[in-house]
């Protein structure tokens, strides 16, 4: 399988912020989500990929070509910035035709592509409208269409739905995913929202401040975080300092098998949805219990530790809930 984007030890800086060397491959036709909190360097990495910033070290390959020092125009990328950055006083059609005009149809048939982009993104009614008069969702579609008109080897999306109302994001994410499949486009999508990342991503690349910490399919990142930061960022609310001794860890007064890990100090993490509740198991006292969109999140104490679990009913504070920790679901991290 080819790798349209290969990043080798790419490092950069913006003012005092340093992006430590990042190595990452994006596979052909893959939808990779670069995920992390604000200020962690996601956009910086994307701008380094676009050629809008000069790297301090490392190399970037796009479509098999070394483009580390190439002009953005020579990278064959489709870039959708965070706030879309449409050419506001121009019409939608002018925005869409911009790339085609510059590239003089040398790489593709512009009219055919324009027709296909207009159809796929349902832009026909907007063609004559100045871009600055469009709504957020319309601007997003035009920005995407403009990027697609460049016939890119890779599509780079910087927080493409963050400017949209909360209620629209899910739908737009699904639309993005559909388009990515339809155009068979290798895509890198930057965002800080886990739900958004899980909706679109084939793989997630998690960034902590200035560094890439974990890359993998969503299940792997959620179930086996490499450190506490990833666990916390992916809403894994259960993380406790533990000691592994003789293949066991002690948690809230109970012993749990941890045979795979050598003896030492760790943090044990388990996702709330993996804590099994039932009629048997260890007794926990409920502290709070509230309804969330798809389940009930309950916080309870087990001995001296506090844990979160997901259930299907709201518990009263002080109520006893019985839980079991499946050993295979407990993951030990060192950081």
């Amino acid at each position: 399988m080819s790798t349209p984007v290969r990043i080798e030890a790419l490092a950069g800086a913006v003012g005092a912020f340093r992006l430590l060397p990042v190595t990452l491959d994006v596979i052909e036709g893959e939808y990779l989500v670069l995920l992390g909190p604000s200020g962690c360097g996601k956009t910086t990495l994307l701008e380094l990929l676009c050629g809008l910033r000069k790297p301090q070290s490392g190399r970037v390959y796009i479509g098999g070509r070394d483009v580390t020092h190439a002009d953005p125009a020579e990278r064959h990328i489709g870039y959708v910035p965070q706030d879309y950055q449409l050419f506001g006083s121009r019409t939608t059609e002018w925005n869409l035709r911009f790339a085609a005009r510059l590239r003089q149809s040398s790489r593709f048939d512009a009219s055919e592509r324009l027709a296909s982009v207009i159809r796929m993104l349902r832009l026909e009614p907007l063609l004559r409208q100045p871009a600055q008069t469009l709504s957020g969702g319309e601007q997003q579609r035009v920005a995407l269409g403009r990027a697609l008109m460049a016939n890119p080897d890779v599509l780079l999306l910087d927080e493409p739905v963050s400017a949209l109302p909360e209620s629209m994001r899910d739908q737009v994410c699904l639309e993005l995913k559909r388009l990515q499949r339809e155009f068979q486009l290798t895509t890198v999508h930057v965002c800080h929202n886990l739900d958004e990342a899980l909706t679109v991503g084939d793989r997630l690349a998690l960034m902590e401040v200035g560094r890439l910490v974990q890359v993998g399919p969503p299940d792997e990142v959620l179930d086996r975080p490499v450190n506490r930061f990833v666990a916390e960022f992916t809403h894994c609310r259960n993380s406790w300092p533990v000691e592994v001794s003789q293949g066991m860890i002690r948690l809230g007064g109970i012993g749990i098998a941890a045979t795979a890990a050598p003896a030492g100090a760790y943090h044990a993490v388990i996702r709330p949805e993996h804590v099994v509740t039932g009629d048997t198991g260890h007794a926990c006292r409920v502290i709070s219990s509230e309804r969330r969109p798809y389940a009930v999140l309950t916080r309870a104490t087990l001995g001296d530790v506090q844990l979160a679990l997901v259930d299907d009913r709201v518990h009263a504070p002080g109520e006893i809930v019985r839980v079991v920790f499946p050993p295979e679901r407990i993951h030990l991290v060192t950081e």
Partner: protein
Amino acid sequence: MRLDVRNRAFTVSMALVAVLYPVSIAVLIACCFVYPRDVSPWLLWSEPALRHALMLSLVTSILSALIALFLAIPSGYLLSRYRVPGWRVLDLLFYLPIALPPLVMGVALLIFFQTGPGRFIQRHLCEFTFSVPGIVLAQTIMGVAFATRICKLAFDNVSPKLPGVARTLGATRWQAFVRVELAEARSGLVEALVLAWTIAFGAFGPIALFSGITRMRTEILSSSVFLEFSVGNLDRALVVSLWMVAIAGTALAIVRGRGKRPLW
């Protein structure tokens, strides 16, 4: 209801103050128009000296406005986009001609062309003092300062990320500047051109000092007003003034009245 009354009182009081200036200007101009005079309003066409002054005013002001805009675009862009060391000094130097009395600019120009570099320019490139090129130079220097401010504001309103996006779509740095940044800032650039032209068209002090007021040679319309007034021909000065108002007003109405339609 009381809130409504208070809101209305606020709006009315603001409006009263706001209309004071435009009404005063309208009254002043109207007074000039209705003031009784004994000379023909077509004086400007019938008198060769005044006709020459009119043509010279139009040609030099248009030329200097174009030169001013050509210089103001990169200057405004630089001031808007970059914070290089010495930016404040640079900004101050662009502001200075606005703050200084125009006459001082005329004196400075005269002095400069008495120095070595100035004499070299006059000898080998172009004669500026007491000549038509001097009029253009003085008008341009005045115009650049104002046009640069407007150009800077115009570029401030264009997102600095746009050229980057254009480059990812295949544009070179120059294409991104011309086809995207200049195009997006075009309304402001037209404003800058108009302002530079109005400054040039109405300039008097530095031109009188630097280029002199010689009939059929370096006399422009603003100099004509002064000349006619200084010899007691108030009627003739008034006619020239009214024509200046009419020309400037028409030009402004045409350029500003076109709204935000793209020029290219």
